């Protein structure tokens, strides 16, 4: 791992690390309700996440990026192909062993629906902490809150008393409580205001380094994906059309769709250069 310094360590060419979470020719299919209306969301995707790296998956709606991430997290049944974690296949029916389940934690877009509105934040976090076997103390909860930049008194609050950005921090904290090795994030900042988005992204980057996490980061926002990712995979209609180092993909796109995607993103500095 590159040493942590004041410049971002993201995007530099990493020394080759072992693959930790790998998708081999994964297909995810949703059965439709009416005759013939099924959806082939992921069509034979092979991608590898290396230890300590952040793999960004970018695509528009219908690209299958969320389905792929859930399949890699063992949350979505796989129709064909397989996903391996540390060399072992994940069960196709999503019945993971407890240890593996805790190792692969996922964070989603809407924090409010991820938290029980009737439980205090502290209680939710204590539950998450207790999952590795030990009994969590108030100090443990406090430390966890501090880890995500929230004050200790948040433990007593209900989700309704927190803002979107704060709730997303709580959700991240809950994921961290399980001491995962891989964090999969599906549009974790898309529902947040720009300034709050920036804070949560900074937090994710910090946490990743502090805890040595490997991360899969799914988003439709190319700028955000590029900021956090070492490598980027571009998805369209269930397939990966391009994958490579983040800066390579963004500065030297090969596939026409990638180019189209890049051209469509409006640049706030377009006037600045003038």
């Amino acid at each position, binding site marked *: 791992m590159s040493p942590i310094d004041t410049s971002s360590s993201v995007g530099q060419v990493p020394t080759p690390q072992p*693959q930790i979470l790998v998708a081999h020719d994964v297909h995810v299919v949703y059965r439709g309700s009416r005759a013939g209306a099924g959806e*082939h969301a992921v069509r034979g995707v092979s991608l*590898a996440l290396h230890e300590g790296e952040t793999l960004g998956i970018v695509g528009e709606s219908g690209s299958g990026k969320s389905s792929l991430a859930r399949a890699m997290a063992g949350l979505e049944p796989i129709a064909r192909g397989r996903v391996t974690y540390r060399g072992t296949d994940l069960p196709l029916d999503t019945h993971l062993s407890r240890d593996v389940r805790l190792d692969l934690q996922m964070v989603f877009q809407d924090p409010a629906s991820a938290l029980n509105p009737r439980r205090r934040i502290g209680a939710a976090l204590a539950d998450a902490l207790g999952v590795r076997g030990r009994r969590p103390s108030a100090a443990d909860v406090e430390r966890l809150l501090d880890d995500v930049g929230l004050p200790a008194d948040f433990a007593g609050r209900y989700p309704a008393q927190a803002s979107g950005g704060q709730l997303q921090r709580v959700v991240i904290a809950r994921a961290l409580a399980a001491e995962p090795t891989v964090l999969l994030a599906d549009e974790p900042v898309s529902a947040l205001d720009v300034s709050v988005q920036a804070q949560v992204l900074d937090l994710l980057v910090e946490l990743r380094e502090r805890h040595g996490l490997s991360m899969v980061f799914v988003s439709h926002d190319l700028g955000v994906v590029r900021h956090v990712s070492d490598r980027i995979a571009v998805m369209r*209609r269930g*397939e990966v059309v*391009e*994958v490579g*180092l983040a800066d390579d993909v963004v500065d030297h796109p*090969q*596939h026409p769709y990638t180019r189209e995607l890049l051209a469509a993103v409006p640049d706030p500095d377009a006037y600045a250069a003038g």
Partner: protein
Amino acid sequence: MVTARLPGTVADAHSTATAAPDPAPAPVWRPDDEPSGWRSWAGRVVHHPVVLRLAQVPVVAFVVTIIVFLVAHLLPGDPVTQLTANVNGITPEEVAQLTSQLGLDAGLADQLRSYLVGLLHGQMGISFYSGASVSSMLADALPATVELAVAAVLLAGLLGIVTGIVAARTQGTWVDHLIRGGATIGFSVPWFVVALVAILVFGVWLGWLPILGRLPTSLTYEPTTGFVLVDAVLQGRPDLIGPWLEHLALPALTLAVTSAGFITRVTRTAFLDAQAQQWVRTARMKGLTESAISVKHVLRNASVPILTIVGLMFGGLLGGAVVTEAVFSYPGVGSLLVEAVTRRDYFVLQGSALVIALMFTGVNALVDLSVLAVDPRLRRG
């Protein structure tokens, strides 16, 4: 497909997919979408929601027939006992003879089979009491029940929908609260209390309305179709209409009052929901007046839940009609059914129950179809 080499080397592979053909897009309408060929047409007909929905009616009727048959025959007692109850000195041989005469000595399965076969030929059996054919009895009684049910639904619907819309338009004011309170009282009070109060007040004390039967006994009425309104026109007898309405009033109003309250609340909610939709904002942006918005954009959208509830209520109304007919001595299918149960008059019982079941499923099928007609989102795709 994807040619990305999984990176593990420093010189990372920056790879792209070969130009793979576009996979089939999501089902969004495209101009060249219309399928062709007779096979697809046949497929569309069979899977057509209208056909599917209508096909449910005979299936339901069949199932109901069997259940009613079993329940009727499993009730303690039997027609023969009932028939011979007042005859003194009847011998067991005569009882047995009567039993086999009525066809009741055969096994249950055989009786069911012959009943079903008879149904297929349009024969519903005869009454053990009057000897009249069940189908002719039903032909007399059914129009009366239909008139009652239709009148009740129309009254309840009109009352409920109008008050519901008023409550929605005056949301939050005392008018709204008054209407909602009245609606709650309406469907909370047991209907027979309403019936008895109505009879007492309008029939006995004020003497405004008759409380028995369908037409005054003094009036001669030879049914052509069985429906008084139609016959009055066909036979040129406008004098029938007045008394007919008078006799229909109390039973129909009783039923209507207790159901209207529910329709009021459903209408109000549906209206408010539809009004809150974003497309109403678009309509307002176009500069439409509020009443134009209400009619063109709110009502049609609100009608779906209202229609559905009215359809469901129809079943309740039919059930209420059965007992209403008993209370008001109104000669409909309900009265027939109640009598038949008491007397174990099997064929009449089964026939009445079947007819009521058909009416109920028929009405619900109609409601479902009209919802399909109103809301294009529910159609194919």
